[in-house]
């Protein structure tokens, strides 16, 4: 003789704990990613040579130097790792010191230079000069510089 046990309707319940775990993980992830992106890459109108002979950047440590555009092809300063450096001689010295520290802490570091296409060369050249001085102070034979360009979505 068979017997039927009536257990009542199946209990459907949403467990909030794993959802909260996942939401917090995602929040932390997005915050971390957005900070990294913001600190490294400012919104700049990079040069876009066509056809471009540029290539994808190699893997490795990098310090990204953003040349902030000013009016009429000038620059308002340089930004590296979220820090601002003035375009005067004091700012130049601080930039050299900062890059030297980065070079010493990360052997083989690349220095990526990002500048707006309208910015005058006279405002970008000090970054190159600072990179070379920093490499000399860090004991490197040469500064490994990379010029960032817009790939046009490629």
């Amino acid at each position, binding site marked *: 003789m068979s017997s039927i046990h009536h257990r009542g309707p199946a209990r459907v319940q949403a467990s909030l704990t794993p959802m909260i775990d*996942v939401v917090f993980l995602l929040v932390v992830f997005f915050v971390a990613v957005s900070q990294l992106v913001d600190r490294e890459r400012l919104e700049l109108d990079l040069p876009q040579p066509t056809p471009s002979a*540029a290539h994808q950047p190699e893997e490795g440590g990098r310090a990204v130097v953003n040349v902030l555009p000013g009016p009429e092809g000038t620059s308002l300063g340089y930004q590296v790792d979220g820090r601002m450096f003035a375009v005067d001689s004091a700012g130049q010295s601080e930039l050299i010191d900062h890059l030297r520290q980065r070079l010493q802490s990360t052997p083989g570091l690349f220095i990526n230079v990002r500048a707006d296409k309208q910015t005058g060369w006279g405002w970008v050249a000090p970054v190159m000069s600072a990179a070379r001085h920093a490499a000399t102070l860090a004991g490197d034979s040469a500064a490994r510089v*990379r010029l960032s360009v817009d790939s046009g979505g490629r």
Partner: protein
Amino acid sequence: MAVTSKARSSRSVRSSSIGVNLASMIDVVFLLLIYFMVATDFTPGEQVFRLDLPQRGEGLYEAMFDQAEQPLLIRLDVSSGEPGYTLLLEGGYGSPEDIDALGRFMAAHRIGGTGQRDQGWFTSDHPIVILAKPAVSWSRVVGTFNAVAGAGYDVVSLEVN
């Protein structure tokens, strides 16, 4: 005996409730996958030109390139007329009218390049230095660099002083 049977039944109920719920993990994995796909589409693509800036020696270009060859100097200046800049190749190589013409010239005169056999003057590792005036825009400097690199030259640098 009845107590033992009840205890066994209780244990089996407890052990059957332990399990790994894959559904939430799959949810998260799909969310991350979608995020990365979207982020990849919207992140502006950047490429780079690589150049090394060696320490300066006493001579003007002695330390820049460890080669016996004199570098080919390309002077870049602003001008009021079209195309808004001037190019000059030092050493009597002339003045290309624009960056495209510079690229064609450099490609034609590279040994093994696009020109005729007797037109090859420079090897692909011939050092080339771009000397730009401070007022020249960054896009012109990069465009000149791109033209020379695109013509097949490997040792291209910028004069930064």
